[in-house]
Structure formats: C-alpha cells, structure tokens
C-alpha cells in the first residue's frame, strides 16, 4: 500500500515537471526588476555608445559582448570614456544573461542565453556597424 502511494506521488511529480517544462518552453521569464534595471541602464548608455558603433571604434563580439575594435577611430581625449563605456556595457550584459537564467531557475542556461543574444544583437545591428563573424574576424555589416 505504501509503495503504491509513493508510485502515485511519483507520477504526480512527473506530470508537474512536464507541465512546468512545457510552460517554460513557451516563454522565458524576463519581467523581473533586475532585468528592467539592466535594460534601462543599457538603454541610457546606448546614446553614448551608438556613435562609436557607427565609426567602427566599438564592435559587437560573437559571444554577446562589445569590444574596442579600433582605438584609432577615437580621439585621444575620448579613449578613456570609450573604455569605460565598453567595460560598463559588458558588465551589464553579463549580468543580464545571468539574471535571465536565474529568473527561469536555470542558471545552466546562461551560456545558451548569451549565445542567443549574441546572434540577435548582430542581426539587429545597423548597417555599417562592425561585428565578429563565426571565425572571430571583424566584419562590417
């Protein structure tokens, strides 16, 4: 009798697991305060970063971050500022990928999420911006 109950409980747990899994595949949870904060921080920074994407100083890496691509495109007086922007942006991006994985209770998805974003950042980049192709070479879009 007791074993039967355990078996029943097991089935219930399995069903719940499958149902939860099906839901998780339909949507990825991104509506958390931490994601919203990172999003708004990156949005504000974008105004400053956009011109550096435009002149090729900063490019989109294939692993979902940004990098200083051509320091010569930046006037000496602004180099410090660009480095700061790139570092801050990458910190936010890294936190964003981690937070989305955490919000979905799947910390092990962080890398997959980062890879997905890497592709989408590049797909949505404006013409003229630079990105790293699959081989890691800088390419002008």
């Amino acid at each position: 009798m007791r074993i039967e109950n355990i078996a029943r409980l097991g089935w219930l747990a399995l069903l719940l697991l499958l149902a939860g899994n099906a839901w998780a595949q339909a949507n990825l949870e991104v509506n958390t305060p931490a994601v919203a904060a990172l999003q708004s921080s990156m949005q504000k920074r974008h105004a400053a970063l956009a011109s550096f994407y435009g002149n090729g100083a900063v490019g989109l890496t294939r692993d979902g971050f940004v990098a200083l691509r051509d320091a010569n495109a930046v006037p000496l007086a602004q180099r410090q500022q660009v480095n700061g922007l790139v570092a801050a942006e990458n910190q936010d991006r890294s936190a964003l990928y981690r937070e989305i994985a955490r919000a979905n209770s799947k910390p092990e998805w962080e890398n997959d999420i980062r890879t997905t974003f890497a592709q989408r950042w590049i797909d949505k980049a404006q013409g003229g911006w630079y990105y790293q192709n699959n081989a890691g070479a800088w390419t002008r879009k």
Partner: protein
Amino acid sequence: MRSLTVNAALAAVLLQGCVTINIYFPAAAAEKAADKIIDEVWQLKKPGEPAAPSSNAPQSR
C-alpha cells in the same frame, strides 16, 4: 534485496530522463525574449506604435 536494487536503478534511469527533458533549452523562446530586450535597449520600435500587431485585432479567428 536484489529487486530493490533493480527498482532503484530503474528509478534512476527514469529520473535521468526527466532531467534530460527538463534542461532542454527553449531556443525560440530565448530569441523572442532577446528581441524584446534588444528592441528596448536600442529603441528599435517607435514609441507611438505598439510592440506587436497582435494587440489591435483578433485576426487569426
């Protein structure tokens, strides 16, 4: 005693199956989420227009 071991092994295999199913990465959902966030960060959607056309009519019915 032996049947208990067999049962335990069977349970382990079944559980493993569950875990494998459960860690499957939802690539399409992740892309959707990424698009939503990137559109916000890069302001790719004009402020006046709704994020998705699905909000204005039940076209599919």
